[in-house]
């Protein structure tokens, strides 16, 4: 009676081991992703040289040039562009939701905004091509496939990320902070700007960084709307090619060194994304 049914204790052991294996599988997948992108991409770094890839200006892989410097710059340009558009809109939307809207409105608006995140990125890209590109072409010049159009589309795409994380961090500022501020005679906006936002600072920052991560990683919408020219844009109406766009445009066609070049692009992208994620995690952890 004191000793367990043998089958039951064996079952418990099997279950525990299986679950351990399951849990380790995500590590395995991460490992595989890293290894296979590295295996494919690193040889080219050795062959062509790190400097010639990361700081090279010329991308002509079928002719032996693998410079992706313009794409790194372009990726950051569209990302900051998206942030310039998405961050103020997203943050004020989050402030409005957290501080001004009634409970009922919150119940409707929050999920509605989260639905924005569910719309496939290709739909954003498509609508950008149909509606934003012609407007830019008409009023700002150029072809319309440009830094500015891409930034607008990405800016809208990252809104849900920024809103929902900023909202959560604003909501997690203790009520007593606000009460203290009101007690000293501050108005609502003074309270928000001087007390609430500084307290929610790191969470808001994290939302911006995660938004950047999403923007820099976006692919299909970007190749639809960015024009994909290889030059570093000198004007907001110039076309540009991002790291992700480079991979997606050419992957299906590439063979040999050309393909390796795309995997090198992937390595650079992976490193940038990982760095951003660390920054964001750091921000979120400090808040707690």
């Amino acid at each position, binding site marked *: 009676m004191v000793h367990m049914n043998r089958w039951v204790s064996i079952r418990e052991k099997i279950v525990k081991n299986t679950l351990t294996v399951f849990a380790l599988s995500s590590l395995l997948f991460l490992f595989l992703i890293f290894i296979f992108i590295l295996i494919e991409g690193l040889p080219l770094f050795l062959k062509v040289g790190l400097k010639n890839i990361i700081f090279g200006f010329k991308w002509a892989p079928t002719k032996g040039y693998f410079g992706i410097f313009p794409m790194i710059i372009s990726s950051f340009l569209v990302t900051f562009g998206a942030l310039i558009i998405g961050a103020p809109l997203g943050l004020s939307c989050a402030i409005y939701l957290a501080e001004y809207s009634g409970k009922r409105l919150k119940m409707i608006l929050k999920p509605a905004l989260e639905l924005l995140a569910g719309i496939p990125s290709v739909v954003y890209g498509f*609508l950008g091509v149909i509606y934003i590109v012609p407007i830019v072409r008409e009023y700002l010049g150029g072809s319309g496939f440009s830094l500015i159009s891409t930034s607008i589309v990405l800016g809208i795409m990252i809104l849900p990320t920024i809103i929902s994380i900023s909202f959560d961090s604003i909501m997690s500022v203790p009520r007593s902070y606000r009460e203290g501020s009101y007690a000293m005679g501050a*108005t609502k906006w003074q309270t928000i700007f001087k007390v609430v936002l500084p307290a929610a600072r790191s969470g808001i920052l994290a939302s911006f960084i995660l938004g950047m991560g999403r923007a820099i990683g976006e692919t299909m919408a970007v190749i639809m709307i960015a024009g994909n020219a290889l030059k570093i844009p000198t004007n907001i109406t110039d076309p540009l090619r991002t790291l992700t766009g480079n991979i*997606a445009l050419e992957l299906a066609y590439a063979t040999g060194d050309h393909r390796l070049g795309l995997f090198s692009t992937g390595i650079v992208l992976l490193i940038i994304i990982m760095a951003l994620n660390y920054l964001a995690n750091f921000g979120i952890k400090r808040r707690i």
Partner: protein
Amino acid sequence: MRINPKKVNKFIQIMLNVQAFFTVGILIVIVALILVKGIGNINLEFLFSFPEDMGRHGGIYPTIIGTIMLVILSILFATPLGVGTAIFLTEYTKETILTKIIRFGVESLAGIPSILYGLFGFIFFVIKLKMGWSILSGVLTIAIMILPTIIRTSEEAIKAVPKNFRIVSYSLGATKWETVIKVVLPSATPGILTGIMLSVGRAVGETAAVIFTMGSSLRLPTSIMDSGRTMAVHFYILAREGISMEKAYATALVLVLSILLINIVAYYTMNKVVSRFS
């Protein structure tokens, strides 16, 4: 000139109002545009007939089947793994270096952009494992991609189950697994379902990771080793190559409606969980 704080307060409130509604307005405009332009071209025939002339005429039936196959199989693959991982992290271990590493892995997977999943799936499943452009390659790639979502939502859901339920179960002589299966999981099911639904939404809307692993054959897939095209990929090709704007809008509408529906169901189940434990 002295600024009146009350006026500033009012002004800021109005500004925030405007911005918030502008943002919501964008969503409404996006959905409305797709709806208005797409609704006229949707009918049963569009949904259940084969495309002709690369999709310029006819329907999108094979892409619906391709999407369903991709989504169902990748969910079936990712759910046991994801929920199992969540159970392991919450029930079977204390906070150790191992769990920290696993959590780090999950976080990192969640941050990797889909094009890199596409790149990985292409080189690993399509080329190295010689699966070719096939539904199987797509399923495995997407399953890995949605795994972190399922793990994180399941973990949250499992953590939300009151500790007391477990104590009672153990005190009645249940083993750990019996407690997990009979008490913890049933209470956490709605939360886990929410995570699954969100993942379904992500898989349905994904393009970059799918196009390089599943290919874009318009033929009706008959086995998991066939190449296939999902609705999102079909929409992308229709729109990008200018094959047919009417069909593109109609496909986008089917796509957006199904994702909205999935998200609404997810949100609804999540709310049920919240109200249940609060």
